[in-house]
């Protein structure tokens, strides 16, 4: 699949700018409440695969096989993205008794308002829905939710073996 590209190349996809943008959209909706990195990882996934949540809006990204793997590889890039946006004063980092938390700043919302691409607009709508749906759910319960469903996300393509057989001929 074309979405999985190593981060080191100058591939813009899932790079700090895109990931940071998505994180910013989420943080803006929960402002002023901060979020943990892990919560951001899950919310980032659910933002683009909102159709994996029952009754959620259509997903922004296609439902590729094994997409649940994205939950595992996002962390590093998410950190870089958050650092990038923090360098422009759009994200704030806090050390709390609960751990390392991130939040939006007072300039974050106006930054997002400037963006006009259709993707960005859709992204912000999803962020609103996500905050409304899971905003009050604790980190622990969010994790539980993920654990429960992670096996389903990306397991739709049952006939994949047919393709492998074709390939091997």
């Amino acid at each position, binding site marked *: 699949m074309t979405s999985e590209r190593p981060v080191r190349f100058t591939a813009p996809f899932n790079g700090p700018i895109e990931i940071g943008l998505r994180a910013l959209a989420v943080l803006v909706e929960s402002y002023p409440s901060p979020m943990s990195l892990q919560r951001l990882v899950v919310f980032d996934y659910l933002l683009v695969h909102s159709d994996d949540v029952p009754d959620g809006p259509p997903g922004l990204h296609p439902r590729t096989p094994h997409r649940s793997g994205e939950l595992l590889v996002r962390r590093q890039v998410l950190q870089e993205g958050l650092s990038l946006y923090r360098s*422009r004063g759009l994200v704030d980092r806090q050390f709390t008794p609960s751990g390392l938390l991130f939040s939006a700043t007072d300039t974050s919302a106006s930054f997002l308002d400037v963006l*006009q691409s259709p993707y960005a607009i859709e992204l912000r709508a999803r962020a609103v829905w996500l905050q409304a749906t899971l905003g009050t759910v604790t980190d622990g319960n969010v994790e539980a939710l993920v654990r429960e469903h992670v096996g389903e996300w990306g397991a739709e393509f049952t006939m994949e073996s047919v393709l492998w057989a074709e390939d091997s001929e």
Partner: protein
Amino acid sequence: MTTPGFQLTSLTLTGQGLEPASLIFGAGLNVISGPSDTGKTFIAECIDYAFGWSQKPSDIPEAAGYETVALGLRALDSGVEYVVERSLRGGGAKVSAAGQPDRILAEKHDPKSSETISAFLLKLCGLDGRVVRTNAQGKTRQLSFRDLAQLIVVSEQDIIKKMSPARSGQNTDKTVEDSVFRLLLTGVDDGSVVAGPDKAIVSAESRGKAELLVFMLEQSRSNLELMAPGATQAGLAEQLVRLDASVAEATAALASEQGAATALEERRRAVWESLRESQSRHAVLSELQGRFTLLGAQYESDLLRLEAIAEAGVRLSQLDESRCPVCGAEAKYHSDEHPDHAVAPEAVAVACAAEAARLRVLVRDLGQTSDQNAAEVRALRDAIEAQKREMYAADEELKTFFKPRLNDVLTRLREVRETQTRVRQALDICSRINELEALQSQLDKSSPVTSKSKFAAAAGSSATEQLSLKIEELLKAWEFPGLQRVTFSDADQDILISGRKRAAFGKGVRAITHAAFTIGLLHYCLDNRLPHPSVIVIDSPLVVYRDPDTEEVGFSRKLKDLVYTTLAAQSERGQIILLENEDPPDGLPATATIIRFTGAAHGRKGFIPQPRARSNNEG
């Protein structure tokens, strides 16, 4: 064997403290004459007793106290003199001879033993080990001396009997007696006769077989009726032929139907194969199409994202860096550049544009591939439909047209085969019935072995003719009145004199002719060098009863004298001992031994001497 047989030399009766009673015999004719009660018959009984007779001599008062009878005899060929001693109480005998060890002989003949009286005497005659027939089926046994006894020792009762001299009158002994007679006449015994099965057993077996056959036939016939009522073997055979033809016909029809169906089935199978192929390929390509769709969506999504990222990058770069994006240090604290930090937002916009261009190419290519695949999927779907229709049509045709026809033929074939099997089974029963009937007729034809057959004829008419001639010679010499021919009757084993059966004459004639028969047999054997004991003892052949027989009118004293004179003249032709009431005529040659009992005080009273006062030296 030059002169078989033996000659009696003496007869002696002994008892403790008693004077022995003794007779000395000579060669040729011996006459012992005297009135009744002088022991003549007793003499004959003693001789026969010494010959192994199981019956002891009569218990006459004069013989009281006597214990042993001793018969002296001389073998004619070797000249050895034997004495056969036997206790009057019974048991076996002792034989002694000079220069030989004594032998103890058993009374009864035993084919396995040579130490019997019978074996001893038979050996002297050259008749040991001979075999005679005992029944009509050819059972045989060894000859015993007792078989000869009635032909050589004739008692005063037997001399007048109506039966043939060769027969005793017991019907069960007839076969043996005839066989013995034949043996003497021909010298050939029945050693080569093979015994056939006992008539009674054979008959019982036959009955059993016949019953079984009847039972089996009934069973088979009723089975046949059940299986094929009213059918005949010929009818069934015909039916089978027709059935075979039907089977062949039905089989051919089946083959042709199957052949026609086969072509259609082949086509159907071919269609089925390609249908499966199509369906399989359709499944694969459909799956692939799904992937293409997904990829297309991916590309679309990617294009949108690129647009957003480019915009965000531009906007970000317009903001001042208040912190280091890598380490987060505030600008005022940051001096060195980090190596390896993420690409600057400015550069990202350029990269995004390039990437988007590449993507658009991919989208176009994908579009083409996807369209092609979609077309093929559609084509396959159509092909599948067509093939399904074709298969369905073939199925229908097979089902509605061929199948029923096939079933019909199969059913017909099965029915015919079933009938065929039934008919075959019925025919099997028919042939079984035939076999049984054949066995039955075979059984009816073969009657139990009756070998009254041709064995008996072996006596050969010439032997009996010659015997008849000898007897005729004797009767002629005795001037038998009215003598013409003497002929032989095989059935009676007896002679006919002048055409009249011997048994039909009165007892006086019967006595004389019995003697002639016995002596004639002796002469016949001697003249033809056939084995014979060579000694004959006849009791009262010439006695005529007081009551005259109207038959006896022609008898004269002359006949009796002639008997004596002719026999006396033939002393070289065997030893003949006659016991008679009347004295023989005077003037007989010295070769004849004449012993007269007086029955009175003068001369010799009788065989057994009067008891005298005992003295120690006698007895």
